C-alpha cells in the first residue's frame, strides 16, 4: 500500500486548504473550508459525510464544475504536481477528458438516452485519442469485457434504457476507464443500486483499481461502502474535514468525537442483538451560513470543554498518518465512551420485551395483488388481446402477533411496498384474505368502516412528500384527531402538543410549515400523525431510508419507544437487513412478490439460510473493516414481475440451484423450528450446514 511506501512520489491529486463558496440571495455561503488531502497512484481515498457536508462540492471543485454561483475562494488543487486552480476552461475540459474521469450517482444521467452504447463509448476514444472507428470499437468491447459485462457485442448495439441499473453503471465505469485516466472521481456511484448489485459493482471497482493503478476519489454517505473500497478515508462534517486516516484507523480507532458518534449510530450486522443498539448524535448539523464560532462540532459534542466554544481547532497529526480536527483528541481517546446512562436500560427494555406469545392481530392468507398491464399489440388496442398481469404480491401468507414487529426486507421491485398498500387498502386485493382484529378487511379503504380505518395507519418513506406543504404541522397532526374524534374538540391543540412532545419536538413546531423543517423533523411529524389516531397496527414503509445515519438512529429509537408506549403492532419495510434486525421481532425476506424466508429475527441472521438471504447478507456493506463476510455474488438482475420464472422465483440467480426441480416446482416450505420457515428445495439439513455469513470480532 502506498501509505507505507517510503519512496518520494508526487501524489496524483493534492488538495490543500481548499475553500469553496456559493453565492445565494442571502450572501456567500462557505460550503467547504480548509479541506486538505492527497491521493496517490493506485489508492482509493474515501470521503464520507452526511448530506450537505460538502463532500460532492469538493469533487466538483477539483474539476471546476461548480456551476454559476459556486467559486473556489482559497487553497490549491495540484494534479500531478500542477496547479489546476485558475486554468482556462479549455485546458480543464481537455484534462477532464484525458486524465480525470468522473462517475456519478445516476447512470441514466451520464448516458445519452438517444445514442447506442457503442457510439457513446467509442466517441470517447475517437475524440480524445483520435482512433479510427474500428480500433475504437475493438477497444470498447475489450473494456466492456473487463468490467464483466455479459455479451458486450450485444450491449454495444443497445440503448441505455434497455440495460438494467447495474449494467448502466458498468457502462459508465467502462467509459470512465477508456482513456486510462490518472484520477477517477466517483460520487456515490452505487447509492441508487440494490445491495446485491452494489456488491458486484464495488467488487469491480476494487479490482479495477488494482489492475489499472488508478487513483480513486470515492465519495459516499455510506460508511459500509467506504470500509469496503477505500484505503484511506476522510470524514467531513459541515464543510470541514474533521478526521483523515487509514480506513482501519477511522473505523476501529476513531479519534474525533463526530466520527465516534457516527460509528455508534450505524446499524451493524453483528450476531447478537445488543451489538445493534444505536446511539444517535444529538442536535443537528449547523447550516453553513451560521456556523458556531469555535469548533464546529462543539454544540453536539459529548466531550465539550470551555475552550471548544472559542478556538477553532486545526487539523493536526496525532499519530503518523492520522489527522484529527479536535483539540482534545488524545484525552478523549484515553477515556472509554459510555453510552448515556438512561439509554441502556431503555434500550434493553425495548428490545427484550414481549416474550409471551400474543394473539395474532393481522392475518394474511394467500394474498395476491396483481396489476393489469396492457400488451402493446394491435389486438389489445381494440380490447381483444390477452391480459397480462404484474404479479407484485403473489401468494403471501403470514400473521403478526399483537405488539410485535414484522420486518419485511427485499430489493427494489420485490413487492414489499405493494404488500403494505394492500393491507391498508390503497391497492385492491386480487385474491386471498386479509384479517385484522378478526374482521375481514379485504376491501379498499374507501369501503371500510371508519373504526377500522383508524386502527390501521401508515408511516411513509419520503420526508418531502409525507406532509402537505400547504398546512402547518399542528393542522396536519390535528386533522386525524378531529376526524376520528380521538379527543373532544376543545382538547385537540393540547393533544397535538402532547404528540409533538412524544416525537421530541416542542410546541414551537405547532405553527410551522413543512418547508421550515429538516428531513428528520418531517419524518417525526409523520410519525406523530400516524400515532394520533392511536392505531393498533402501523405500517412503516422504509421510514428511515432517506435519512442520514445520525438522524436515522434517532428516528428508529423514537419509533421503538412510541411503539412500546402505545403497545402498537408494526410492519416495518426496509431494503437494509441491518436496520430491520435491530428493530424487528420477526423478519420476512421477499423476492419477486413471494416470501423466501420468514422467522424470528435471530433465526434469519444465522444458518439455516435461504440462498437469497445468504446472498443479501453477504452483499450488505458493513461499516467495520475487521468484519469477515463470506463472498456470494448474484449473477444477472431481478427478472420482471410480468413474467416471473416458473418454479422457484429465485432459480435464475440462485448460486445453489439444484437442477430442474427448481425450475419446475414451487419450493415447499421447510419448518426450521420456532416459526422459522424457508421456502427452498434444498433439504433443511444441508441449509443448516451453511456457515454464518458475517462474523464480527467482539
Amino acid at each position, binding site marked *: 500500500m502506498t501509505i507505507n511506501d517510503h519512496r518520494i512520489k508526487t501524489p496524483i491529486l493534492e488538495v490543500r486548504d481548499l475553500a469553496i463558496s456559493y453565492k445565494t*440571495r442571502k450572501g456567500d455561503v462557505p460550503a467547504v473550508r480548509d479541506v486538505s488531502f492527497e491521493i496517490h497512484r493506485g489508492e482509493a481515498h474515501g470521503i464520507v459525510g452526511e448530506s450537505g457536508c460538502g463532500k460532492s462540492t469538493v469533487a466538483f471543485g477539483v474539476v471546476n464544475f461548480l456551476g454559476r454561483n459556486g467559486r473556489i475562494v482559497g487553497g490549491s488543487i495540484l494534479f500531478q504536481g500542477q496547479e489546476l486552480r485558475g486554468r482556462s476552461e479549455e485546458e480543464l475540459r481537455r484534462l477532464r477528458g484525458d486524465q480525470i474521469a468522473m462517475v456519478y450517482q445516476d447512470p441514466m444521467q451520464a448516458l445519452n438516452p438517444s445514442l447506442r452504447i457503442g457510439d457513446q463509448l467509442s466517441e470517447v476514444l475517437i475524440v480524445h485519442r483520435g482512433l479510427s472507428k474500428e480500433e475504437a470499437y475493438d477497444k470498447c468491447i475489450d473494456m466492456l469485457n473487463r468490467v464483466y459485462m455479459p455479451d458486450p457485442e450485444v450491449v454495444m448495439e443497445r440503448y441505455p434504457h434497455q440495460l438494467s441499473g447495474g449494467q448502466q453503471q458498468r457502462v459508465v465505469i467502462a467509459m470512465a476507464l477508456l482513456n486510462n485516466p490518472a484520477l477517477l472521481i466517483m460520487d456515490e456511484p452505487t447509492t441508487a443500486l440494490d445491495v446485491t448489485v452494489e456488491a458486484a459493482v464495488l467488487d469491480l471497482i476494487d479490482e479495477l483499481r488494482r489492475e489499472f493503478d488508478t487513483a480513486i476519489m470515492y465519495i459516499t454517505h455510506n460508511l459500509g461502502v467506504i470500509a469496503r473500497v477505500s484505503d484511506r478515508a476522510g470524514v467531513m462534517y459541515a464543510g470541514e474535514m474533521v478526521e483523515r486516516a487509514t480506513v482501519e484507523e477511522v473505523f476501529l480507532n476513531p479519534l474525533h468525537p463526530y466520527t465516534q458518534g457516527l460509528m455508534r449510530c450505524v446499524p451493524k450486522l453483528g450476531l447478537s442483538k445488543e451489538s445493534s443498539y444505536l*446511539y*444517535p*448524535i*444529538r*442536535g*443537528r448539523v449547523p447550516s453553513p451560513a451560521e456556523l458556531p464560532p469555535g469548533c464546529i462540532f462543539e454544540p453536539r459534542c459529548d466531550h465539550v470543554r470551555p475552550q471548544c466554544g472559542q478556538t477553532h481547532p486545526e487539523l493536526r497529526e496525532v499519530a503518523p498518518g492520522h489527522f484529527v480536527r479536535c483539540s482534545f483528541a488524545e484525552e478523549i481517546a484515553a477515556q472509554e465512551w459510555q453510552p*448515556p446512562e*438512561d*439509554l441502556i436500560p*431503555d*434500550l434493553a427494555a425495548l428490545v427484550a420485551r414481549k416474550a409471551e406469545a400474543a394473539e395474532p392481530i393481522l392475518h394474511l392468507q394467500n394474498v395476491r395483488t396483481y396489476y393489469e398491464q396492457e400488451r402493446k399489440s394491435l389486438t389489445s388496442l381494440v380490447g381483444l388481446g390477452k391480459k397480462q398481469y404484474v404479479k407484485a404480491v403473489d401468494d403471501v401468507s403470514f400473521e403478526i402477533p399483537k405488539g410485535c414487529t414484522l420486518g419485511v426486507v427485499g430489493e427494489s421491485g420485490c413487492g414489499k411496498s405493494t404488500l403494505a*398498500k394492500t393491507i*391498508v*387498502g*390503497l391497492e385492491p386485493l386480487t385474491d386471498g384474505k386479509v384479517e385484522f382484529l378478526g374482521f375481514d378487511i379485504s376491501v379498499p*379503504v*374507501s369501503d*371500510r368502516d*371508519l373504526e377500522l*380505518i*383508524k386502527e*390501521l*395507519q*401508515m408511516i*411513509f*418513506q*419520503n420526508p418531502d*412528500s*409525507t*406532509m*402537505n*406543504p*400547504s*398546512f402547518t404541522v399542528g393542522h*396536519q397532526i390535528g*386533522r*386525524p384527531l378531529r*376526524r*376520528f374524534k380521538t379527543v373532544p374538540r376543545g382538547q385537540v391543540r393540547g393533544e397535538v402538543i402532547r404528540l409533538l412532545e412524544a416525537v*421530541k*419536538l*416542542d410546541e*414551537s413546531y*405547532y*405553527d*410551522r410549515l413543512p418547508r*421550515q423543517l*429538516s428531513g*428528520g*423533523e418531517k419524518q417525526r411529524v*409523520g410519525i406523530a*400523525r*400516524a400515532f394520533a*389516531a392511536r392505531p393498533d397496527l402501523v405500517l412503516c414503509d422504509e421510514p428511515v431510508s432517506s435519512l442520514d445515519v445520525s*438522524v436515522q438512529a*434517532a428516528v428508529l*429509537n*423514537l419509533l421503538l*419507544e412510541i411503539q412500546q408506549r402505545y403497545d402498537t403492532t408494526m410492519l416495518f419495510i426496509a431494503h437494509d437487513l441491518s436496520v430491520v434486525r435491530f428493530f424487528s421481532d420477526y423478519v420476512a425476506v421477499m423476492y419477486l412478490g413471494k416470501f423466501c424466508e420468514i422467522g424470528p429475527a435471530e433465526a434469519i441472521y444465522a444458518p439455516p439460510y435461504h440462498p437469497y438471504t445468504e446472498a443479501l447478507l453477504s452483499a450488505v456493506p458493513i461499516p467495520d473493516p475487521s468484519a469477515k463476510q463470506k463472498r456470494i455474488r448474484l449473477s444477472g438482475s431481478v427478472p420482471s414481475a410480468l413474467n416471473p420464472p416458473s418454479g422457484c422465483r429465485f432459480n435464475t440467480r440462485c448460486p445453489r440451484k439444484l437442477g430442474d426441480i427448481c425450475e419446475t416446482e414451487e419450493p415447499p416450505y421447510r419448518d426450521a423450528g420456532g416459526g422459522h420457515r424457508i421456502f427452498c428445495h434444498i433439504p433443511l439439513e444441508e441449509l443448516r450446514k451453511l456457515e454464518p455469513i458475517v462474523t464480527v470480532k467482539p
Partner: protein
Amino acid sequence: MAVSEQVVPRVSARPSFWQRLRDAMSPILASKVALVGLALVIFWILAAIFAPVVTPYSPLEQDADAMNLGPSAGHPLGTDHLGRDLWARLAYGSRLILVLAPLSVLCSLAVGTTLGLLAGYFGGLIDEVVMRILDALMAFPAILLYLIIIAAVGASSTNVVIAITIAGAPGVARLVRSLTMDIRTREYIAAAQLRGENPFYIMWVEILPNARGPIIVDAMLRIGYAVFSIGTLGFLGLGLPPPAPDWGSMVCAGRRYIWANPWAVLWPSLAISSLVVGLNLFADGLSEETMRYQ
C-alpha cells in the same frame, strides 16, 4: 430517549401579516420583468379607479365642434368622430375590461378546476369522458367558438363572459388535471385516504392548494388573452353594444376615419396591447421566479 435531534433556534411561531405579505411579494420584487408588467397593469387599474378624477369629460359626452381632433391641451389624446374625448373613453373603458376579463377568467377557472380535479383524481372512465368532451371543445378555434356562442345568445356583457368561460375552461381543466395526477401520488394524499377522507375534501383541501402556483400564473396569462378576446369581439361588433366605451369597438369605429384621424385607432390599440403585454410580462416573471427556488 435522552438523545435526539434537538430544537434549533426558534422561528417565531406564526409570521405576522406584513412578513407574510413580504414573503408573498418577494418573487415579484426579485424579477424586473414582473415589475415592469405589474407597473403597466397598475397604471390601468389606477386609471379605472380614478377615471372621474383623471379626466373632466364623460365617455359619452359628444362635442360636435371637436370631431376627429389630434392630441391637444384640451383633449390630451384627441377626440373621435363624434367628438368624444379619447382619454375619457379609454379610462372609463378600462373599468369595463378590468371587470369583464378577470370575471370571465374566474368563471373558466371555477369550471376548469372542477372538471380537471375530477378527471385527474378519479381517472378511468370519468377522465376519459370529461377529457374527450373538452378535447372536442378545444378542437374549435377560439374565435369561431366566440362567434357561434355570441351569435346564438346575442351580444351583451354577460354573454361575453359566458363565451370566454366556455372557450377557456378546457385549457384550465387540462392544466389542473395534469397537476392533480402528479399530486395525487404524493404520500400525504395516501395519508388522507388512510383517514377515510371524502374524495372531495382530498381534491379541494389537500390537492388544490398545492397546485395554486401554476394555476395563478396560468390565470394571469388567461386574463391577458381575455382582454384580447374582448377587444376582438368588440372589433367584430359582437362585444358590448354601443355606446359603451369598449376598447375593441373604439378601434372598429375609428377604423373608418383612419386616414383623417389615426389617433382614434392608435390609442385604444395601444391600450389593449399594453394591458396584454403587462399581464404577460407579469405572469412570465412570476413563473420564472417561482420556478427558480423550487
